[in-house]
């Protein structure tokens, strides 16, 4: 890292001093109840996840180790308002490499889920969710494409059971979430 960048980083750090009132000590328990995120407290901050993360190599802010520490500290508001959590590409390298079996990618998923419950969701995900509800597929597959399938000798694409899909969206409570979320 260039010296100037180091100085800049120190500068930002000074501006973002942590206050005890920013922390929610119960947040880690809330997270540890979510399937896949149970072991959040086992992280001892070795940094293997960040070192091996392909996204962290290309982004200045995405640091899985830091996200886990912030979760342990209970910096809930900062985590759930931070777009950086949407950068995990779910390659699961961190899950495989973690010496404590923390399930980092699953914890990031839990943070994303909570953000959505709180009413915010990236537009791309909202689009795909709406497509699934409307067509059963994550994309709207046009009639032209369906026709081309036939021309290429492929069997017709099975029609999804939209009634069942809609019912599942309702029972899980996800259709309500989808109605109220902002992008």
């Amino acid at each position, binding site marked *: 890292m260039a010296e100037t960048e180091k100085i800049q980083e120190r500068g930002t750090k000074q501006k973002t001093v942590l206050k005890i009132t920013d922390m929610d000590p119960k947040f880690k328990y809330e997270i540890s109840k*979510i*399937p*896949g995120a149970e072991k959040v407290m086992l992280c001892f901050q070795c940094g293997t996840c960040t070192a091996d993360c*392909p*996204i962290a190599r*290309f*982004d200045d802010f995405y640091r899985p180790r830091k996200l886990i520490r912030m979760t342990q500290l209970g910096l809930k508001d900062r985590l759930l308002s931070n777009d950086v959590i*949407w*950068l*995990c*590409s*779910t*390659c*699961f*390298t961190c*899950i*495989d490499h973690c010496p404590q079996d923390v399930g980092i990618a699953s914890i990031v*998923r*839990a943070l*994303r*889920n909570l953000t*959505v419950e709180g009413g915010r*969701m*990236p*537009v*791309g*995900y909202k689009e*795909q*969710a709406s497509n*699934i509800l409307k067509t*059963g*597929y*994550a*994309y709207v*597959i046009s009639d032209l*494409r369906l026709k*081309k*399938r036939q021309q*290429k*000798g*492929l*069997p017709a*694409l*099975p*029609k*999804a*059971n939209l009634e*069942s*899909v809609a*019912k*599942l*969206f309702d*029972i*899980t409570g*996800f259709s309500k*979430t989808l109605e109220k979320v902002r992008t």
Partner: protein
Amino acid sequence: MTELKYLLFLGCAIPYRLPSYEISTRKVLSKLGVELVEMPEFNCCGFPLDPVNHDMMLTLAARNLCLAEQQNLNIMALCNGCFGILNHVNKELKEDKEIKETVNGYLKEIGMEFKGTIKVKHLIHVLAEDVGFEKIKETVQNPLSQLRVVQHSGCHVVRPAKYIGFEDPENPTTLKKLIQVTGAKCLDYMDEPECCGAPIVGVNDKIPLQLAREKLDHIRAVGAQAMITCCPYCHIMYDLNQPRIERIFNEKFGIPVLHYPQLLGLSMGISPEELALKDLRVNAAEIVNICS
């Protein structure tokens, strides 16, 4: 002997963007005597919903698994994302009673119940494990010995090892061995198991394109003539996006990216037209020349 009959889980990306993968898969599997049963009423595997609602993902995936259970057939997925999710949910529901109860609670409303009677496999697992290298070798009529390629298995067919456990994610060899059966040489290159970045396209395009560019750079460095994939999303990153990557970074790669069954098909002597090689964005004419 295992009966070679599977329920084909097509997923969304293949019918939407990459019929070439489906066409070539059907061609080679019929030559290998693998029977594919169309999966009626299937829906999205659930992968795009995991980041927004974990329960919704579990339920959608479980519904697909129940459809397969009703037919008493194992699922074969062509997409790493679909395989990863369906396999993960299948194993998790088999092992974790609590999660199974929750999911079955949802499924009850649509008259379904997860029982845990089937398996989920990826195309490369079916080929390597069920069909077997010997049988594939017998169908190779036109060994591609002049061809030097590289593999890109992608992430969700190998990771997390806890749920897949088919091979070492740091050194995946299944696709490599499947390539070698065709007679082509499969070269090693730097950062082979690295992610393509596709899942975050839409949230951030810059990072995935940088990742893809880096991979193409490593592939060019070893002098590979083509790249072989087994996932539609990885394929889109390297094939469909290659001209965009060349434009943005002002570089020239021109590396054709073939779906594995296209390569296998060429070695079986199936014509490039039948394998939909023309559908590829990066022109693969040179590969066809080398192979014929």
